[in-house]
Each structure stands twice: as C-alpha cells, then as structure tokens.
C-alpha cells in the first residue's frame, strides 16, 4: 500500500493532537485530585493540632493527679511528628530547641506546667511550623 505524504502528515498531526489531549486530561485529573487532597489535608491538620494540644492537656491533668500519662504523652508526640511530616513536609529538621522540647516528652517526670506550655505552643503552631 502506497502511503502518500499527506497521509503521513495526518498521522503525525493525529499523534501530536492525541498526545496533547491525553496530556491535558491527565494534568486536569491530577490537579483536581491535588486540590481535593490539599483541602482535606488542611482540615485534617487543623484537627491534629487540636488533638495534640488536648493530649498534652490531659497528660498534664494525669501528672497533677500523679497518674501514669505515658499513653497521652506518646499520642501527643505521635501527632506532632505526624503534623510535621504531613502538614509541613517542606520544613527542614526541627530546630535544636524544638527537638529538645519534643524529646522531653519521653520523660515521665515532666512537670504539668511544662506540658501545659507545650500544649499552648502546639495550639499556636510553634512546635510545628515555626521555630520558637
């Protein structure tokens, strides 16, 4: 079968147009999904901040009553580190000061007031997206 030059031109044009349409469609899908995820992440991150602060407040309450607060302290740290991972992934490593304060959470003798200070700072975003 003899293929004319015009036919070759049509096929090449079709290739380019097809690639363009598929590319635009994929890009649109990707952007829509990213926007939906961003909205979701933003609301989830807000909830996480509240939950982490509440964990620290409860840990302080337990400490005041001289009860074990390991589970609450652990939850708080888990949520704060998750916040840093998912909600602020562009941040570099925490500052030494933030790292020191978070590491203090391991200590079961942490004073109630220090826990409440941490709760306040988490609520203000100081341990998540800015250095104190």
């Amino acid at each position: 079968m003899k293929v004319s030059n015009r036919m070759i031109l049509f096929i090449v044009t079709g290739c380019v147009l097809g690639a363009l349409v598929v590319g635009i469609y994929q890009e649109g899908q990707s952007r829509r999904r990213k926007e939906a995820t961003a909205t979701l992440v933003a609301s989830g991150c807000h909830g996480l901040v509240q939950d982490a602060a509440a964990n620290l407040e409860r840990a302080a309450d337990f400490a005041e009553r001289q009860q074990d607060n390991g589970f609450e302290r652990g939850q708080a740290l888990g949520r704060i580190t998750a916040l840093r991972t998912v909600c602020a992934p562009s941040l570099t490593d925490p500052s030494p000061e933030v790292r020191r304060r978070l590491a203090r959470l391991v200590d079961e003798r942490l004073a109630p007031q220090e826990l409440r200070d941490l709760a306040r700072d988490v609520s203000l975003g100081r341990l998540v997206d800015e250095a104190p």
Partner: protein
Amino acid sequence: MRGLLRTAFAAAIGAGVAALCWLAYAGRTGQPLGETDTTVVACAELGQAVLADLDLALAQRARQERDDYTRGRAYGRLAAGMLICFPDALTDRTRRPLRLLDVLTDPRLTVPQLQWLRTVIEQGWQRSVPGQPWRGGVL
C-alpha cells in the same frame, strides 16, 4: 468525501498511537497520575513510622517493659494517618479503622495481638491510596 474519511482514519490511528505511547511512557516511569506529590510521600513515611513504633512496642512488650509511651506514639501517628491520609477512615460505616485504634488503647494487649495488629496495619497501608478510602484487612 473519501478524502475526508481517509483523513479521519489517519487522525484516529495517530491519536491511538499517541495515547498508547503516552500510557507506555507513564507506566515505565511509574508516574501516570503525578502521584509523587508530597502528601503521598508523607503518608508513606507516616505509615513506616507507625510500623516502627509497633515494632518497638512489640520488643518492649516481649521484654515485659512498659510500652504506654510507645503505644501512645503509634496511636497518635495512626490516628493522624487515618485523619489525613485516608479521609473516609473516621466515618467508615464498618468502623474497621476505628477498631484498629481501639485495639491499641488496651494496656493488656498481648504480643500475638500486637503482631496481628501490625500485620493488618501494614497490609492496609500498602493497599490503600492516600485521599481514598482505607482498604485495610478485616477485623
């Protein structure tokens, strides 16, 4: 008329070839839908962190040490993962993800129970796609 048909046919072939090339390229690079965005990567990291916490809790429990803090950290990360990475998890009609969290709150959790929980979470994290419903194992 015949010329028009020939043109349409050629264009259709061209479009088909281009679409196939695109899909083949996307499949080869493994990035068909731009899935390397930061949230997906962060969710994968979070999943690894949950599993690491569970491993540590398992080791502590096996040595009969206290694991409240480690279990709590796993709980915090798992809850965060469910909240952010798998949006429907906390409203899931079956409550399966929530039951996973409930199990972790039990201070009398045995080593086999903890091991089983780790397996369910690991499989669930592998099967689920961030932004879509949790597809974890059956409890």
